[in-house]
């Protein structure tokens, strides 16, 4: 319990700090790197929450593949400079956004403080291999076969779409 609390505080601080850093960075490259750290710390939480398979997916797919793609595009387009010119044409939007964010946060606080999840019994995982690839895979290919198949359509669209958008030659 104490160990978990310590881990939670350390990783939670890292996650929140890097999350805030992402949205405040002037330089997109820094933002990408902060986001990678954020994904890593969340992956650690997954391990604590007995979701080993998802934790590794998070590191391999999210932090690995997706963020590299981001980094690649930022570098390719040489977006590192201050593209975000200071002239913000919608200053009001920032304050609206801030107010909305605080409202959201308050709501989240109320929701959790309402104690709905306070009494959740901290039962041990139903089986020692809960969250490893075997039970997750069985679940995926039996109960969730249809969503799995539909993701293949999604990936086909992504392939066709990104090729159409990014290819150079005109036709």
């Amino acid at each position, binding site marked *: 319990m104490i160990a978990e609390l310590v881990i939670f505080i350390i990783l939670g601080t890292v996650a929140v700090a890097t999350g805030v850093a992402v949205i405040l960075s002037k330089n997109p490259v820094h933002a990408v790197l902060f986001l990678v750290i954020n994904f890593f710390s969340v992956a650690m939480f997954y391990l604590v929450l007995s979701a080993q398979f998802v934790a590794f997916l998070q590191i391999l797919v999210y932090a690995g593949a997706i963020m590299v793609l981001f980094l690649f595009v930022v570098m390719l387009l040489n977006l590192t400079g201050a593209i975000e010119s200071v002239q913000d044409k919608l200053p009001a939007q920032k304050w609206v956004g801030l107010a909305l964010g605080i409202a959201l946060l308050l*709501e*989240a606080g*109320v*929701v959790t403080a*309402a104690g*709905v*999840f306070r009494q959740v019994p901290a039962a041990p995982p139903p089986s020692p291999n809960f969250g490893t690839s075997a039970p997750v895979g069985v679940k995926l*290919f*039996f*109960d*969730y*076969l*249809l*969503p799995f198949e*539909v*993701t293949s*359509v*999604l990936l*086909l*669209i*992504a392939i*066709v*779409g*990104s*090729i*159409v*958008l990014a290819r150079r030659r*005109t*036709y």
Partner: protein
Amino acid sequence: MRIPVDPSDWLILIPEFILLGTAIAILMIDAFAKAASDRSSPWISLAGTAGAIVAAVFLWGNPLSGFGGMIVNDDFGVLVSTAILTGTALAVLISVDYVRREELPAGEYYALILLSTIGMLLMVSSANLIMIFLSLEVLSIALYVLTGFARMRPRSQEAGMKYFLLGSFSAAILVYGVALIYGATGTVDLQSIADELISPGVLGNPVLLAGAGLVLVGLGFKVAAVPFQMWTPDVYEGAPSTVAAFMSIGSKAAAFAALVRVLIFAMGGLRPEWLAAVWVIAALTMTVGNLVAIAQDNIKRMLAYSSIAHAGYILVAVAAANRLGLQSIPFYLIAYAFMNLGAWAVVTAVTRKGEEAVGLSDYSGLFWSHPVLAGSMGLFMFALAGIPPTAGFTAKIYVFMAAVAADMIGLLIIAIVTTIISAYFYLRVTVIMFMERPAEPPVVTVPTPLAVAIAVAAAGTIWLFLFPGVTQSFTDTVARLL
């Protein structure tokens, strides 16, 4: 050995499989026989869509569910799917010459239209929040690409960018709502959620309410309800006209089907909680959509605000959440598919290469050079305004009746007043076409496929007025689900 899925479950998805097969065939022909593909793709996709319609009708009256309740094939779903497939078929027809004129890559264009339609159909029949999210993404990601399809035109790219950012933003909000609902009820299956809601402990759970609110916001973006409509005018204006036509039917119909399933089928027990929110959104959507439409000089932006306003009327039926409301939603969507695509077809005919000639002034005196084209446009404008003898009139009457039956007199009054206001800008188009007689009338060519699409849309618009009962017997069975 355990079989993952009962093989007969796949039968429910025959329309989707036909579309998927057609899309892959088009991509293959495009890869290996480029020249043949440019000519044949629209006709292949039309054949595929027709096959899907036949399959969908074939499944009619067989309420089945499959994949552990993830997919349901009820009459409500089949009717909304028919609206979507009608929209797809007409959109393909109006694309034939447009794609050639704008020199868009034909193979990918039609394949993405069909793939997006798959997402729409899946979303209509999903009875599971994760399937709703996934199919929403299938349809949206294809639409992001299609919106930015005219890569040589900066406006198209920018519209694609805006649509993409706001669309993914709304999807992220939706998925967080799904997470909260999952936390509160322990399930994402709509039927199980409805069962869970019987227990009072779940009903008052603030987490559930927050989740439902976020899902409402996420779907509100997709149906373009105020205050989540800000992307609509820019996207409709920037996107290729045919794509705007396609998405104004398909993504709206699919999102409304999901909204009905989530709010009425799954969370009917929470109606006292969500009614106020839907009421306000519906009232705002009708008012803002119609009022801002008056100020538009660009026909594409005007139609965008018109589509926002129509979402408001359908939301009235959702808020009513009664038998009549449930019957009127599929009818409204089918009628809207005909009249709105008809209007977009005329817009496609009048615009010139590079999306020029989209101002209202470009329609001045159209009647004197192209009487049939202008006459059809007048018919579609009448229908969108809800003036008889058109399907738009019948659809609005159904919605008003649903509002009366649900005792929502305030919303009914707003709906009627905004309908009267909307007549102004719809009729203005008609007046411009008929009354003004410019020295040199606009020169417009109407290729045959486009003419066929306009004729079909016009016929459908009048046919549904004369025989609204065509869908009545089917919508009766819809109401049994309540």
